[in-house]
């Protein structure tokens, strides 16, 4: 499988969408963090670290586009056949892609951090924790995208489902804010908070709200819980994506 991973990484590193994504990530993070476009009002009040953390939400949007396009290429071009003929199983192909995307996420995160530092972010104590938690939650999101991209072979349906998940995440979090603030009480509230944090958008909101708007913690289940939720989501999605996959007949 290590060979598959090396082959995938070679392709990811030369993929124009990934390269352009990294360039945009750098530029946008730098410009926003340094506030080169003269944003006023709430953006100005966020502070450097707040603005840097704000733009990190774009990473989620990027992987919504990148993961389906890249992974579904296996089926679009039919190159998964080469891998199966050479003796690899579909599970191994899936795992190599997943690891490849995690690596891509790490690369993009490194670019983002460098751009933020160059843009003036210096309070690493304030940033480190939220960034790490958010990146772990994106791993769970990538696992969801991989489930869709690997189980469904038709590109247009993959694309629709991927954006459905993104839309659902957004709408659910907006609705969740209302529910958790005004409706759910007691144990229902705690369950609601845990469900809220299953989405990387939810976890992002928790820390963004804390950093840039108010120190109130009404949707924060705590750091260990957030990490546990993200890891749990990743493992569940991996299981769903690989259960019985080796028996699947490819068309």
């Amino acid at each position: 499988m290590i060979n598959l991973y090396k082959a995938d990484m070679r392709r990811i590193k030369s993929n124009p969408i990934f390269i352009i994504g990294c360039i945009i990530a750098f530029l946008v993070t730098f410009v926003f963090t340094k506030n080169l476009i003269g944003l006023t009002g709430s953006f100005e009040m966020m502070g450097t670290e707040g603005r840097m953390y704000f733009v990190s939400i774009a990473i989620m949007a990027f992987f919504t586009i990148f993961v389906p396009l890249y992974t579904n290429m296996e089926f679009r071009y039919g190159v998964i056949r080469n891998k199966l003929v050479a003796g690899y199983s579909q599970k191994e192909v899936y795992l190599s892609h997943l690891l490849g995307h995690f690596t891509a996420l790490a690369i993009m995160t490194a670019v983002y951090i460098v751009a933020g530092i160059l843009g003036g972010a210096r309070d690493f104590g304030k940033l480190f924790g939220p960034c790490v938690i958010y990146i772990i939650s994106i791993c769970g999101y990538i696992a969801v995208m991989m489930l869709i991209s690997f189980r469904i072979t038709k590109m247009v349906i993959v694309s629709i489902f991927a954006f459905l998940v993104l839309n659902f995440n957004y709408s659910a979090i907006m609705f969740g804010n209302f529910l958790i603030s005004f409706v759910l009480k007691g144990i229902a509230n705690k369950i609601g908070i845990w469900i809220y944090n299953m989405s990387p958008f939810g976890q992002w909101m928790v820390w963004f709200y804390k950093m840039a708007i108010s120190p109130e913690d009404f949707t924060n289940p705590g750091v260990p819980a957030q990490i546990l939720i993200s890891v749990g989501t990743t493992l569940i999605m991996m299981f769903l994506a690989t259960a019985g996959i080796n028996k699947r007949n490819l068309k």
Partner: protein
Amino acid sequence: MFRNLYADTRSILSSRIFGLAMLAVFAGQTFDFVITKVIYLVIDASISAESIAYFYPSAAGFIVTAATLFITDREFSNGCIRNKIISGVKRSDAFLSAVCGGMLQAVMYTLFACVVSIFFSSFFTLGFMAESISEIADRWLVTTMACVAIGVFSTSIVMMLGGNKISYVVGLFLAFAMKVWDNRILGKLYPEKGHCTLTGMNLAVCRFIDRYVPYSYLVARPHYDMGSYIIGCSAMVIFSVVIGLVVFNKRELK
């Protein structure tokens, strides 16, 4: 042209995805109703029709974009567009026919959503408390116009980029990005607390988007004159068709 239009319309109406989109509209409305009902039970209140009648506008951007993407992309993924061009159909006719198909889909989905909404509002709620019939009709009319414009825009993008993998994501990404951005603009123009603090260029841009970009018509109740909505939707349709025709006529079909 009309023969091609008839063929395309027939193909759309008999396609599985058309039925699935209708089912998605119904399922979405039902799901929204169930969730709202549970919440209102918890807070011990009665549901007014306004709480559940407008699920479709919030999801319309995505539904219309996804459905038109799927149906229009078939032309390129199956290679059927080549058959049309080879058998003498003009490129302009093929493009316009696809765009009309996008419009038709948008109208059908919105009409169906309206019927489903009326059904749920009539039988499961206390009725409309804060909106008159003309206001309800206005809202559905504006929603229909916005969906038609979005359907045309989405179809044009797929026709212009068809066969390219980017076509799968551009329309959907734009629909999502506009939804998020419009929500933000709405929050800035009409904040819950206090008054709008935007000035100058910022204010002008936000107002323009809120007034003339059809995606923003789906986010809130109509709060401009009908003329603005007609201008906004017509402009989007005209731009999409004109640019789409130019690009599609010139592009190489693979």
